[in-house]
């Protein structure tokens, strides 16, 4: 390659990397995060967005550039340049994606290990999906509710199952989801990091009421949670 081309490619690469980093930093496409593990997923997502942006710009940019620059001019009936391949180029565009796959795969694996590391002494809540409602059982208190109440900062382990068909328990603000399957118990870990009320949606087609099988995660301060729990226990007696 000529010196000028090398320089232009180098500048282009730097610009693309800068745009990728900017995209990763600025992207705001996820719901407001309300659980500790969600931050790890968000970080992974930003990395993916950065890499995706660069790849997208290279390929789409290359496509648009090629169509504009190499469009047949009127009256030009000559053939194009007759090369069949280029081993070096083909090696590069096989190796670089392969390296990216290794990077993305490894990062994903590490994030997965982090978000599924078990907690010490989590609060256990059993979740039962039933067409078309969610039930939450607090085994220690012998309490059943239709909304999931938890204290802020308290590790929670959900044990999910279904009474009928497969449902899926999804809290978008936690970036967390797990299927609730009849005859099996699956596990989902989270620790709420924001006070407030966050939607629970069913994410596995379960029949006519699938779209309305919703509930809420209500995150209290630890004191408010105690008060809520006491009131629930009193009311059920």
């Amino acid at each position: 390659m000529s010196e000028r081309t090398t320089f232009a490619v180098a500048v282009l690469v730097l610009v693309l990397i800068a745009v990728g980093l900017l995209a990763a930093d600025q992207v705001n496409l996820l719901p407001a995060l309300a659980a500790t593990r969600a931050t790890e997923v968000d970080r992974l997502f930003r990395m993916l967005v950065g890499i995706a942006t660069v790849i997208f710009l290279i390929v789409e940019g290359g496509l648009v550039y090629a169509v504009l620059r190499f469009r047949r001019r009127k009256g030009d009936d000559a053939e194009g340049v007759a090369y069949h391949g280029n081993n070096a180029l083909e090696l590069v565009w096989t190796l670089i994606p392969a390296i990216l796959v290794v990077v993305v795969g490894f990062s994903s694996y590490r994030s997965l290990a982090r978000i599924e590391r078990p907690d010490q002494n989590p609060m256990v809540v059993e979740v039962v999906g039933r067409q078309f409602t969610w039930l939450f059982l607090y085994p220690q208190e012998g309490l059943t509710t239709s909304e999931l109440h938890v204290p802020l900062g308290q590790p929670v382990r959900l044990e999910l199952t279904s009474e009928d068909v497969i449902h899926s328990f999804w809290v978008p603000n936690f970036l967390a989801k797990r299927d609730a399957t009849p005859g099996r118990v699956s596990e989902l870990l989270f620790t709420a990091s924001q006070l407030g009320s966050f939607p629970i949606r069913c994410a596995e087609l379960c029949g006519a009421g699938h779209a309305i099988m919703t509930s809420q995660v209500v995150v209290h301060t630890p004191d408010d949670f105690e008060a809520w729990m006491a009131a629930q226990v009193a009311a059920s007696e």
Partner: protein
Amino acid sequence: MTSSRTPASGAFQTLRRYISWNTDHKVIGIQYLVTTFTFFLIGGALAMVMRTELSQPGVDLLNGAEYNRFMTNHGSVMLFLWIIPVFSGFANFMLPIMIGAKDMAFPRLNAASFWLIPPAGVIMLTSFFVGAADAGWTAYVPLSIQSADGQSLWAVSVILLGTSSIMGAINFVTTTITMRAPGITIWRLPLFVWAMMATALLVIMATPVLTAGLVLVALDRLAGTLFFSVEAGGNPILWQNIFWFYSHPAVYIMVLPGMGIVSEIFPVFSRKPIFGYKMIALSSMAISVLGLTVWAHHMFTSGLDPRLRVPYMITSMVIAVPTGVKIFSWLATIWDGKIRLQTPMLFSLGFISMFLIGGITGIFLASIPFDIHVHDTYFVVAHLHFVLFGGAVSAVYAGLYYWFPKITGRMYDENLGKLHFLMNFVGTNLSYLPMFLAGMLGMPRRVADYAPEFTSLNVLATMGAVLLGSSTLPFIYNAIISWAKGPRASANPWRGLTLEWSVTSPPPPHNFEQTPAVDHGPYDYGQPRQLEQPASAAAD
């Protein structure tokens, strides 16, 4: 009395030829193309009703149960009655000619494989009268065991269509291996033929597994067996494994032939050889083999043993490498070319541009921590429509325009073609880009209703759907009018070098006056050779 080997020509006068049993691969090819396109329109109509319901929150046009039936049949019709069999239509017409053969290896098996499709389609659609299938095209148990009678008809229909698919694949493989004309070595096969080989191998390996699973479901529903009964100790996740073992390779069955089609078009419309022929051919085979190893990436939230998930994440990401090889090779093919932007080329460029978005978002989905959030949401709906509609359907349109003169003997109207492309490109992006956002922000899939915060995204998607639906109109008008009265097409209007362009438009009854002898590859553009074709593609 019409002989069963009457050739294809002048569509309307000889309409009867196309609605009767005919073993000529060119007639069968047209039968496939017209029939599957009709199902495309039916699947599209179902989608238009769904998008109307979804244009506003609240349940207005369809209640939850009705929505599930429309949604299930939209997916099932589009996948099993359109995008999988349409490529058998192209392969039927073109593959024998491209390899210098007079017909397929098994002409009667070929006709039989087509004739399974109309009854299967009727069975699937008349199921609406007995309570249509409503468990999604994925038919997860236990939900599908409990569905109304139409779910059983659905299973029968899919079994018939799988059988048709397997029969076609056997024909394509046998024909390609045993019936090549002299000089057509493995490394001189057109890339569309390579793509069909890779596809056929997947069809043969994977479809029987789905068929077996459907039989088990049908037995549970109809004969009181307990394969998937939780009470009797059955495991619902078993169905997921059986189903996805086929249905993931199925998506490569849906896209590999399309990649083969655009590989044919880029060299012709850039006047240059395909770049990296061998790597493109081998990448089709690599995607085919790897495609059999990724299926559990559909099950990352299913609660299966956590240790099993990571291998599938790895294989699902690795498959991006041969896919990338293709995309870069296509880009290098048009680079330094003399690009002509007629409709086949426009749709091929659109294919790359939109398939790329589908492919990149596929990597996001392969990453388990992120997939946990977006699995079963509109993010997936967006991804699948970018690869299937932005990708595979664009490739189908590219092929329809490219081979229209060869199949019909007439040229289509180029201005209508460009209008179709523009409406299709804008409509696809407008329909599906908002869905990525909706999914990430919290909208699950397969819902008749949604929280009000998703309204504007859904309105945009519905607008895109209206544009997409309308975009078929210039195409249908163009196809019908041009076929009836368009200008007569020459043998080789695009100056292509593959063998179909060396015969008349449409081809004569046995394709070639005498078996062609070939001494060069199919992509030798860009050389100082005479491109006005004599009757055969023999060397100079």
